[in-house]
């Protein structure tokens, strides 16, 4: 990670995400964030969603962030199925990353339980949540959205809006496909 302006809170402090924890991401750029996490983890990943969600990841688009061959998709009928699968997958240590797409809020008990499962299996969990539906048990929460810039069309704004072990932050970042890492373009001033 290259950060041009040395300061107290750099993206490097909180990204790549702290391993063996569950993290949350909301906003329109959540898919990108999750794909980048899968790409950085350099291992197999499980992508859990609820069956009625009609958005599908396109492997050819995904290939710039991670390896579509290492992804396995699972879909559950109900919210409970999704949470159950998430816990099993986090606990089993078979996957490096477990991405979960949630449409309902999870309560503190469920969130804490998933956090413990992630610790037990040493697996990284990424929960894609609707805006404002996070659980307090999460390690970090990110708000990601695509950022418009007339010159560069691949920018994203990543806001760290909750952090259990550090400070918050707000960055404009770009994914470097060749180097397979996130490059901080600028820091958004508060």
């Amino acid at each position, binding site marked *: 990670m290259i950060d041009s302006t040395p300061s107290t809170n750099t993206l490097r402090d909180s990204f790549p995400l702290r391993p063996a924890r569950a993290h949350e991401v909301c906003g329109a750029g959540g898919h990108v964030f999750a794909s980048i996490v899968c790409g950085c983890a350099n291992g197999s990943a499980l992508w859990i969603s609820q069956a009625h969600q009609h958005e599908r990841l396109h492997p050819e688009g995904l290939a710039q962030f991670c390896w579509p061959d290492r992804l396995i998709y699972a879909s559950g009928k109900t919210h409970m199925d999704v949470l159950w*699968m998430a816990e099993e997958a986090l606990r089993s240590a078979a996957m490096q990353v477990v991405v979960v797409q949630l449409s309902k809020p999870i309560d503190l008990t469920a969130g804490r339980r998933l956090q413990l499962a992630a610790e037990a299996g040493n697996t990284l969990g990424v929960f894609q949540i609707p805006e404002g539906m996070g659980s307090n048990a999460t390690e970090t929460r990110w708000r990601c959205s*695509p950022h418009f810039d007339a010159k560069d069309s691949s920018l994203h704004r990543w806001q760290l809006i909750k952090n259990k072990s550090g400070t918050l932050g707000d960055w404009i970042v770009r994914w470097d496909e060749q180097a397979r890492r996130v490059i901080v373009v600028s820091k958004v001033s508060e």
Partner: protein
Amino acid sequence: MNRRVVSLWFPRLASERVLRARPIDAPFALTHIHANTQRVYCLNAEAEKQGLRKGMGFTDARVLCPDLQTAMADPQADLQFIQTLARWAGRYCPWVGVDDDGLMLDVTGSTHLFGGESGMLEDLHARLDRAGLSHKTGLAGTRGAAWALARFGGGCAPDGQVLPYIGRLPVEALRLGNDVCNALLRLGIRTISDLVALPRTTLARRFGADLLLRLDQALGEQPEPISPQSASPSFAVRMTLPEPIGLISDVMAGLERLLVRVCGTLSDKQKGARCLCFTARRVDQASVHVEVRLARPMRDAARIALLFERGIEGLDAGYGIDQIRLEATEVEHLPFRQTTHQGAQEGDSMADLITRLGTRVGLENITRHLPADSHIPEKSFTTVYAAYSEPATGGWHSAAPRPLVLFPPEPIAGYRPQPPARFQWRRMSFRTAQAIGPERIAPEWWLEDPDWRSGLRDYWRIHTREGRRLWLFFTPQNPGWFVHGEFA
């Protein structure tokens, strides 16, 4: 030692198989559809007394016997049943062949174990009677003669004397085709001894070599082997318990014992189980099943036991379980493989995870994507079941950039070919900052696809001032704009 062959014929095998499970003390028939007509396939003794015959029309049978009870025939189950009987017949000799609706046993040298030939036949009859199967047996020195004796009245021809015993039988007993039999009957040759009396050269010239071959086989002048079926390996074991059990730990302990035995058999045959079914019979005669579908063929008892845990916990033991049975219902080839200290482990844990998730949501809901050969964006990959496929290795590149997310096309307002400067999508308004395109994609006209009925599509990459980067398309043949995906 001279050869001795027992032919065993079950004249009412199919109906008796059904009646064993559901005894009926009335005329009963199995029917099947043959040449667009429902015909009688097999009858029980009661129905035969009423004058019904095999092969007659079902409606005729109903007229003759109005209170006839029927069921549909199931030839596949009959075949399985006769193979079970063949396995059972292995108690008399090791050389048992299935012969249409009967069995052929080469009992040479094994009769003395049952007190001679008569003792053995007595034992055979007693056991089949107890099983409720009507049967006829023929014992002779050749396969053909034994067959003839069993099908035409039953009997036993002593060693070395075939002709006196089968000579009186009709020519059909020689396993000939219908046309040959009819021709012989027309000439007045009714019995086998009539046939033997005729000169061989004329017979061969008139009826072909097959007739003489069959005759020689029956009389023992031509050898005829019995081909025993290779015993199809059975991957099922059961355990009957002296006292009913109900604790999860007890059931798991029983299951583990069964698993060790099944996995031993699987390992001997170089097979791996793909689907296992555990059946617990309760004291009240009800059975409960737990099925585990595995994400890859496996024969590791300890790992499979863990995968059963969830199902066993949900089992209703009722008043207790007194018999447990485990069967590998789907088996795949799994050769021995050199184990390495790395590599296999990761794949194994992933397969276990897929199996565990599959037991709750179904293996069909766990998928992966494979590249497909199509220029249509939504067809450039296929979704396959992760449990039944191997991951692809690369092959994910397209000439033009493709979006990260695809959704079914969502219409937006606009009908001009130029990309709209402003548009509304999902209740949000967007202003176009930059539009890159068009990229024209034509439908695959050789395949019928309802989604592509609107014809050609001109795809545009639209960068909006709001940040979102969307993939829009315009259909020139049917003017309209749609949002189809979103870029990273």
